[in-house]
């Protein structure tokens, strides 16, 4: 059954390695009944909304040195120049030069920068969505310090309003807006699965407490594919003696409004969590093992709310590091060589790179850092909503080769990460390449290694 207003098939496929809607027979990569001119106009309007000082400082400063290509895994894996990150912003930059740059008037007057066309926007859907995980590696190499990644996210606003979002990403985003979860998790589904985990792992899981210090939120990927993470979180919080709860009226950590480029939906999704937290007087919102959720709430939540959030926001790895450092929880030593895949939005873009290292120190594992890992890590290829798009699979598999080389170079026994979307991407590619590494959850490792007699 399809609840999509757009009327395309958005039935889920929750069984395969990568959760998304079923591979559509007929693709609807154009949403809404708009004429081409209307689409261009909508794109220009919503491009224009973002031409503030930050975007202008960036878009005016590109010196066409081409180095961002060397950082982008899509260019490095394919060698195709169209994947040069700044090239992915060409229509957005063109629109800026024409509409809001210091010399815009004269560009228009002498026709130096031509108007963006609908063909360009359609061609750029592949560049702005299928081949960009908004991983931010290009932003690190740019000699002019342009944050190219942030511009891609910004450019997606115009693309969404122009109804030019890839079929699957638009479908899951719309379902997240309507149902509250991109993968069909309703209140009852969430509650049932929590009770299932409570029995399975014999752990007390608080649901819908009226008041609590910590509001815990989950990503639908964990709820549907890695439910053990929910039990692991409960186990740890109980061990730490925290006053925490899940809330069925604010459980979804992911933000497909942000990934698809719909600012209104992004605000709605963030507000659900914020309202739930305010309602229960939470002092901390604990984000799960999810990359972009951290970016959405930790760094953009306040801007959605319109004022500073009345509570702290932590990624679960940050919480675990603090809890271990403060002795709230203790763990047994784990004797094996391990390597860690840093989720882009948490480490490189979010600044929480240190937390996993501290956790591994407490676990006493032999941590072998990935070559060019940590803040300069290669992206798993699934972020930014790309993993949901079937059309992008071929490209994603090609890009994943870089990741396999990187991990194999460490020859570590186990691979960990703290982002469910990364893990799902690893699983999908593992089955595609029959690869021997599995990306396991750092959270679950800590939960499994808890020392019961901790105070």
């Amino acid at each position, binding site marked *: 059954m399809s609840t999509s207003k757009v009327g395309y098939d958005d039935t889920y496929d929750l069984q395969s390695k990568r959760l998304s809607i079923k591979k559509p027979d007929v693709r609807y990569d154009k949403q809404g009944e708009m004429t081409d001119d209307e689409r261009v106009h909508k794109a220009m309007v919503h491009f224009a909304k973002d*031409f*503030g*000082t*930050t975007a*202008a*400082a*960036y878009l*005016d*400063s*590109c*010196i*066409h*040195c*081409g*180095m961002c*290509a*060397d*950082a982008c895994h899509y*260019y490095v894996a394919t060698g195709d*120049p*169209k994947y*040069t990150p*700044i*090239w992915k912003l*060409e229509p957005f930059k063109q629109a800026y030069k024409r509409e*809001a*740059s*210091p*010399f815009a008037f004269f560009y228009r007057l002498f026709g130096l920068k031509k108007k963006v066309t609908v063909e360009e926007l359609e061609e750029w859907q592949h560049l702005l969505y299928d081949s960009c995980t908004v991983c931010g590696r290009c*932003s*690190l*190499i*740019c*000699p*002019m*310090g*342009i*944050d190219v990644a942030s511009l891609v996210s910004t450019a997606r606003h115009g693309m969404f309003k122009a109804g030019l979002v890839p079929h699957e990403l638009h479908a899951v985003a719309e379902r997240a807006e309507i149902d509250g979860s991109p993968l069909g998790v309703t209140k009852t589904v969430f509650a049932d699965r929590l009770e299932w985990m409570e029995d399975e792992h014999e752990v007390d899981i608080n649901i819908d407490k009226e008041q609590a210090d910590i509001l815990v939120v989950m990503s639908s990927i964990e709820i549907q594919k890695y439910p053990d993470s929910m039990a692991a979180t409960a186990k740890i919080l109980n061990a730490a003696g925290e006053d925490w709860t899940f809330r069925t009226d604010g459980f979804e950590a992911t933000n497909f409004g942000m990934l698809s480029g719909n600012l209104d939906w992004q605000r709605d999704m963030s507000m659900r969590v914020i309202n739930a937290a305010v309602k229960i007087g939470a002092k901390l919102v604990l984000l799960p093992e999810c990359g972009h959720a951290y970016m959405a709430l*930790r*760094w*953009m*939540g*306040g*801007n959605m*709310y*319109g*004022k*500073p*959030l009345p509570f*702290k926001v932590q990624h679960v790895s940050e919480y675990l590091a603090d809890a271990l450092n403060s002795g709230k929880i203790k763990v047994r030593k784990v004797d094996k060589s391990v390597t860690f895949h840093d989720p882009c939005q948490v*480490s*490189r*873009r*979010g*600044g*929480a*790179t240190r937390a996993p290292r501290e956790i591994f120190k407490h676990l006493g594992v032999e941590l072998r850092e990935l070559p*060019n890992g940590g*803040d*300069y890590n290669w992206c798993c290829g699934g972020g930014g909503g790309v993993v949901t798009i079937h059309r992008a699979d071929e490209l994603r598999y090609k890009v994943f080769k870089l990741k396999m080389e990187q991990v194999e170079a460490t020859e570590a026994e186990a691979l960990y990460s703290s982002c469910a979307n990364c893990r799902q991407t690893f699983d999908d590619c593992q089955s595609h390449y029959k690869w021997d590494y599995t990306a396991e959850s750092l959270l679950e490792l800590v939960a499994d290694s808890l020392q019961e007699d901790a105070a």
Partner: protein
Amino acid sequence: MDLLEFARGPALQLSIYVLLAGSIWRVLGIALLQSKPDYSEPRQAGGLGGALKVIWSRAFTAPAFKKATMYSKTLGYTLHIGLFVTIFFFVPHILFFKGIFGVSWPGLPNSAIFFVGVITVGVALALLIRRMTHPVLRLISNFDDYFSWFVTILPVATGLIIPIRFGVRYETLLAIHILSVALLLVWLPFSKLAHTFLIFMSRGTTGAILVRRGAKT
């Protein structure tokens, strides 16, 4: 008013006015656009401190990117250092600046400057060939890139020709050299050469935002 007097006087004077007006125009054209506050809870202080940090740190290459950017960064920096040395360590130039700012500093021997100038032009040619042949650069380059290249290297080339003369009178060559500098100054604020000052705005913006997050810059 022969060509040299025109070049040294009104032409250079006018180009300096256009440079100044154009630069302020571009900076304000960006700075006075709307800017939204960041309500997120900072991990550490960003703002001006962050901006200055990245303005400095981004000049260097992270180990992860060393191999990929080695060629263009080495050539790029050689070009910029070459330009800096030829402009600020050639004694007649120093005396020119002394005439304006009253400040003077020791220069390098002219033969050394000539050598650096030749290297600079050579490196510039290598960079141009790279821009015209490398698939990425061919795709993203436009008129601004090629004309800015020309306008940047012309003063160095004309400067080098002055001592060689090729049989042309000294004042004619000097006039051409000064006019080429005027062309550079007039073109600078309206082109990619504006990265001379935009580098501070762009890197600074990233510094202010990302250092506040404690994210890698």
